[in-house]
């Protein structure tokens, strides 16, 4: 069963890694999304993540289940953080294991692409100079459905 969580606490990638892996799996993949110090040529000093928490948990669970189904990777765990993050802090963790590496890469990529398409989370970027701005986002699909070709063709 895939695992999904939305939290305001700092993320510990080791805890997510501990949720995946099995004697049948020869590949374990860990992805971290972190707050970078630049955007469009501007120096960034931090990021504030806001989420529609109740809905985001349901959407993230569904994304994890879709990835597990499409790539036959039930050993999958994903956590997204909300709140004020400093440069270098981890905003999202995806851990997945599979018998061979291709499925793990595909499932991890799928989870991240779908998070960016439809997870109801927003981020406000704070700059070294000037007023903070909401990061330009992606209009989610009106019915919330996954992309038909999402994750296809990835390594």
């Amino acid at each position, binding site marked *: 069963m895939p695992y999904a969580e939305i939290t305001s606490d700092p993320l510990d990638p080791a805890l997510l890694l501990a949720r995946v892996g099995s004697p049948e799996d020869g590949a374990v993949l860990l992805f971290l*999304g972190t707050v970078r110090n630049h955007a469009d040529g501007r120096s960034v000093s931090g990021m504030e*993540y*806001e*989420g*529609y928490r*109740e*809905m*985001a948990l*349901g959407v993230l669970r569904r994304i994890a289940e879709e990835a597990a189904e499409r790539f036959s990777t039930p050993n999958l765990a994903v956590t*997204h953080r909300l709140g004020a993050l400093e440069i270098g802090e981890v*905003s*999202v963790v995806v851990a997945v294991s599979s018998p061979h590496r291709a499925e793990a890469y595909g499932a991890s990529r799928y989870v*991240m692409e779908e*998070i*960016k*398409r*439809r*997870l*109801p*989370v*927003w*981020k*406000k970027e704070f700059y070294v100079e000037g007023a903070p701005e*909401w*990061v*330009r*986002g*992606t*209009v*989610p*699909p*009106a*019915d*919330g459905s996954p992309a038909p070709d999402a994750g296809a063709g990835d390594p």
Partner: protein
Amino acid sequence: MRVQARFFAAYRELTGASHTEVDLPQGATVADLIDTLRARGPAFSALPPKPAVAVNLEYAPADTGLHDGDEVAFIPPVAGG
């Protein structure tokens, strides 16, 4: 019927509200709610005419029918990750 509208991120800042109650006639849809809100005044008219919305925590197209007690969230373009 009465529904609860919720606003997040940029839409919360545009409207100056995180939520508001809206009375609608029976049979009203998401599109009717958007029109009713945008007619309320300058703050709400700043909302786009066809925003993404979620009804009771699920994304829902504009022709979705509403019911008393529904929670309708206005979802700005998303930027997780």
